[in-house]
């Protein structure tokens, strides 16, 4: 069953004003997308393809100009608590996603305070359990964001998104600022989360290798519309030119054969 249905959605921004003529920039045009429960879907697109706009629409932060987004069969209108209990988001820049004056534990407990009726000692226990789940220490509860590294903070961000046990977590370029070692660690962590709790994920990224490691299905966004939608398999090949460009840009696993030959010859 679809958790979120996107039907015929078009959206854009008004740009210009002071120095140039006001004009409307169309970002998404007549887009259809189904997000299934418990699935991890990769949303792949280059910069300027409209990925982030789609994320904001799905998160209910903006209402589409045209078309309809439904959540469990109901039209999505703004951020009501029932919706937020089911859908949460992890941001790209982990450091700016935490209030610098509050402890990590306080920030992770924020969704629990507003979206659940948990008493405060149960909250604390839940946060400590979440911290352990994302491979942080329970003692990190009282640390400030500036005392953690980027990778640790991003894991804390995931813990915050997991706090209310949502059905879907949107990762908006949440791994792009991390190095490879951390990316793999976090993806493995998320795979465990999915297996244990059945949470669905929407991984928004420009890097196909992350999708290939983590997702079951991938859609490719190019110039405001979806150009590919397929199962992720080890040998899948995109057909649309824009999607192929993204696929070919993935860095090689091993150094090139041409250089290898040169090296062999010189030996």
């Amino acid at each position: 069953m679809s958790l979120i249905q996107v039907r015929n959605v078009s959206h854009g921004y008004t740009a210009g004003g002071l120095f140039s003529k006001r004009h409307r920039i169309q970002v998404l045009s007549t887009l259809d997308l189904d997000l299934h429960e418990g699935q991890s879907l990769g949303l792949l697109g280059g910069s300027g393809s409209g990925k982030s706009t789609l994320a904001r629409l799905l998160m209910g932060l903006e209402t589409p100009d045209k078309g309809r987004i439904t959540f469990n069969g109901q039209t999505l209108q703004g951020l009501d608590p029932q919706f937020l209990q089911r859908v949460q988001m992890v941001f790209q820049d982990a450091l700016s996603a935490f209030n610098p004056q509050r402890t990590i534990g306080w920030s992770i407990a924020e969704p629990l305070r507003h979206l659940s009726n948990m008493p405060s000692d149960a909250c604390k226990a839940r946060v400590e359990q979440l911290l352990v789940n994302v491979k942080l220490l329970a003692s990190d509860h009282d640390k400030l964001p500036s005392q953690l590294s980027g990778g640790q903070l991003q894991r804390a961000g995931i813990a915050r998104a997991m706090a209310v046990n949502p059905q879907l977590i949107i990762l908006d370029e949440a791994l792009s600022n991390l190095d490879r070692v951390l990316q793999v660690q976090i993806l493995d962590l998320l795979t465990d989360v999915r297996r244990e709790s059945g949470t669905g994920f929407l991984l928004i990224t420009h890097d196909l290798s992350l999708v290939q490691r983590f997702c079951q299905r991938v859609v490719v966004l190019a110039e405001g519309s979806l150009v590919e939608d397929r199962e992720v398999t080890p040998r899948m090949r995109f057909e649309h030119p824009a999607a192929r460009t993204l696929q070919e840009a993935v860095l090689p696993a091993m150094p090139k054969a041409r250089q290898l030959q040169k090296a062999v010859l010189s030996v």
Partner: protein
Amino acid sequence: MTRTLSIQGLSLKHQQRTLVDQLDLTLKAGQVHALVGASGSGKSLTCLGILDLLPPGVHGSGAILRLDGHVVQPAHLRGREVALVLQNPRSAFNPVRSLRQHALETLHTRNVRGAQADQLILDTLHEVGLFDGQRILDSFAFQLSGGMLQRVMIALALLADSHFLLADEPTSDLDVVAQARFLDLLERLVAQRNLGVLLITHDMGVVARCADQVSVMAHGRIVEQADVHTLFHAPQSEEARTLLAAHHALTMEACTP
């Protein structure tokens, strides 16, 4: 004769803490030398340390810099023999000056002026794959994308007639497509212009894509130095193995035919 740029015994300290410890590096013209390591291993500081552009509070000591075997002062190399490409190109340009002014300023130090300068600038932009030269020159840094700005940075390095390029995570802020194009460009210039490049990165994919030599850094030291094939087929150090394992976890599946 192959031109070389080498640094020996580079040590950097912040207060009592040693950040980079007795580091030796040699760049050869026509080769890409990759410097890889986890964040905090001191790779970026090494890059700044070579040109003596250290942040306040960090002190270098005892480094000997040689260009083609002759001892030189870092100040004589900056912006001439050696150019720097940074991770965030936007902050590397003066926001209130157009890119034309940046380019002319660079040529000014070489005493190239007037129509000759204009032509040279357009040719160089063409060479780095920017075909809309006039429009780009009239733009300011904030009007262009990150990928384009990195190309302009390279163009400026070519205009300064630099033979060595120090690139500090040049593709970390770019999306994969822009990254692939940038690395293509780098590869082409190394071959055509005989540039020597120090490529600092944390991504073994970038290394596999275009490096010839690799130095693996950890805790301020070089723990392994090898050519790229040796490193990928038989990594010796713990750090190299960790980096390669993560890289292969993400790419092996996608690339095996």
